[in-house]
C-alpha cells in the first residue's frame, strides 16, 4: 500500500526537513493517488503542515525529492508549483484582508492585465463569465455574505470558506487542505463533507490534513499517518482506525 503507482499524482520521496535541532520531517515518503481523497493525519507536531509547506515550495527541503505530475518540483518557486496545478489552503487562514471577497477570489485566476505593460488597458472589473464562476464557487462553499465585503470584516468560519473558495477558483490538479474544519461550525462541517465528496466524484484529487477523525475517516479513500516526522502507516480508513500503533501515537504510550 501507498507505493508509487501509474496513477500517482504526487510523490513525497525520502524527504527530510529540520529547523535547527527540530527534525520536523524525517526521511519521509508517501504517495497521493489521482482522483481520490487522501487523508493526512497525525498528532500535533507530526510534521503535516511542514510537509504541505515543502510540497508548495514555501520551505526548502534538506534532502529527498517531491514529484508532482511527473515533474520534479523539489524546491521550485511557490508560484511555479501553484501554476502547475497545485491549490492549497492554510491551517491559519491567509486572506488579502484589505480586499473584497470578490477580489480575493479573482486573484486565483490569471488575468492578462496582471502583466505590467498591459495593465494600462485593463480595469479590475471581471468579465461576465468570470463573475459567474465567482458566484458559482461562492455558492458551492455556502458563503452568504455580499461579494463586496472586505474579508477583514468576516468571522473566522467565513474566512475559511473564502479561502477554500479561492483555492477552488484555481485550475488545480491537486487540492491540499490544512485542517479545513478547524474553527467552523458543525453545519458548515457537514456541508464541507458533501462538497469534498462532490469534488471527488468530478474526478478531483484532494489531500486533506484533519484532526476530526470522523470527518477524515468517513471521507478518505486512503489515510496516511505521520508521527514525529515519519510515516507510521498508510492504509484504508478502517484499517488505520484499528491500528494499535496509530492509537499509541495519538494517545502516547
Amino acid at each position: 500500500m501507498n507505493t508509487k503507482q501509474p496513477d500517482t499524482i504526487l510523490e513525497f520521496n525520502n524527504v527530510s526537513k529540520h529547523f535547527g535541532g527540530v527534525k520536523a520531517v524525517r526521511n519521509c515518503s508517501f504517495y497521493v493517488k489521482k482522483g481520490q481523497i487522501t487523508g493526512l493525519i497525525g498528532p500535533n507536531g507530526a510534521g503535516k503542515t511542514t510537509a504541505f509547506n515543502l510540497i508548495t515550495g514555501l520551505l526548502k527541503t534538506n534532502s529527498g525529492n517531491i514529484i508532482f505530475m511527473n515533474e520534479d518540483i523539489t524546491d521550485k518557486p511557490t508560484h511555479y508549483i501553484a501554476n502547475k496545478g497545485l491549490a492549497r489552503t492554510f491551517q491559519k487562514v491567509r486572506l488579502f484582508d484589505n480586499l473584497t471577497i470578490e477580489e480575493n477570489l479573482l486573484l486565483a485566476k490569471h488575468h492578462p492585465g496582471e502583466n505590467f505593460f498591459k495593465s494600462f488597458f485593463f480595469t479590475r472589473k471581471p468579465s461576465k463569465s468570470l463573475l459567474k464562476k465567482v458566484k458559482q464557487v461562492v455558492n458551492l462553499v455556502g458563503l452568504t455574505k455580499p461579494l463586496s465585503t472586505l474579508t477583514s470584516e468576516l468571522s473566522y468560519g467565513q474566512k475559511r470558506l473564502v479561502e477554500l473558495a479561492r483555492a477552488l477558483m484555481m485550475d488545480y490538479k491537486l487540492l491540499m487542505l490544512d485542517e479545513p474544519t478547524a474553527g467552523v461550525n458543525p453545519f458548515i462541517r457537514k456541508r464541507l463533507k458533501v462538497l469534498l465528496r462532490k469534488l471527488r466524484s468530478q474526478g478531483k484529487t484532494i489531500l486533506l490534513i484533519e484532526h476530526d477523525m470522523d470527518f477524515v475517516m468517513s471521507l478518505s479513500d486512503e489515510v496516511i499517518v505521520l508521527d514525529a516526522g515519519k510515516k507510521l502507516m498508510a492504509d484504508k480508513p478502517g484499517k488505520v482506525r484499528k491500528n494499535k500503533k496509530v492509537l499509541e501515537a495519538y494517545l502516547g504510550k
Partner: protein
Amino acid sequence: MIEAYLIHILILICIYIVLAVSLDLTVGFAGMLNMGHVAFFGIGAYTSALLTLGGTPFLPALIAGAIMAGIAGFVLSLPTTKLKGDYLAVATLGFAFIIESVLKNWVSLTRGPLGLPGIPRPEFFGITVSSQLGYLIFSAVVMAICVFLIVRVEKSPFGRMLEATRDDEVAASTLGKDVYKTKAIALTVSAFFAGIAGSLYAHYISFIDPTTFSLLEVILLFSIIIVGGLGSSKGAIVGAIILLILPEPLRFLGFPSSIVGPARQILYALILLLILYFRPKGIFGRVELGES
C-alpha cells in the same frame, strides 16, 4: 510678488504630488517600506541637469532622468525584494544614504557640495518655458500625466496583484503570483516617476546640490502619504497639498531662516506622530503602515 509666491508653492505641490503618488505605489500598494525614494528623486534631477548642461535637449534629458532612476530602482530591487518590513526599510534607507554620498563625493561629475548652478529652463518644440506661470502649467500637465498613468496601474489587475502581495505574500505566491517580480516592477516604476519629479525640480529651481536630496526629505515624503492615507492616490495628492502649505506661515512669523528650516522638520515630524496616533489610516487610507 504674492502671485509669484503662490505660483512657486503650486509648482512645488505639483512636483511633490508626483513624488508622493509614486511613493505610494510601493508603500501603499505593494506594502514595501521604501525609504529610498529621495534617492531616485536625486538621480532624476542630477541626470537631467547634467545632460542639459552638457547640451542635451530638455525632453530627452527628462526621459533619461526617469530611466536612470528606474534602472536604479530595478537594481535596488534585486537584493531587497526578498526582505520584509523593517529590513527593507533599513536597506532602502542605506541605498538613499549611498546615493547622497555619491552626489557629495563624486566631485568630478556632480561638483559635490558646490552643486550644479545654471540648469536651463525646459525648451521643447520651439517653446521655452521661462515664465513662472509657464512652468506651473508645464508641471501641472506633467503631474497630471504621471498621476493618470500611476492610477491606471493601481486600478488594474496588476494593481490588485500588488495589493495581494502587500496583504499576504505567501498566499499570493500560492495562487501562482510571482511576488518578487511584482515587487521589483513596483519599485522600478515608482523610481521612474520619482526621476521625472527630480527633473521637474531641477529645471525649475535651476540649482541643485546634495542637500536637496538628503534623508530628511524622506520624513516629508512619508508624512505626505501617511497623512493622506496609504493605498490611495487621492490621499497622496491631498497629503502633498496639506504638508506643503502647512509650514508656509512659519516664513511670515519673522523667524530667521536658520530657525525656519528646523522648525519645518519638527512640524512634519509632529504631524506624522499626531496622525499615526489619532488616525493611523490617514485621511483617505484603507491600510495601515506595516499592518500585515
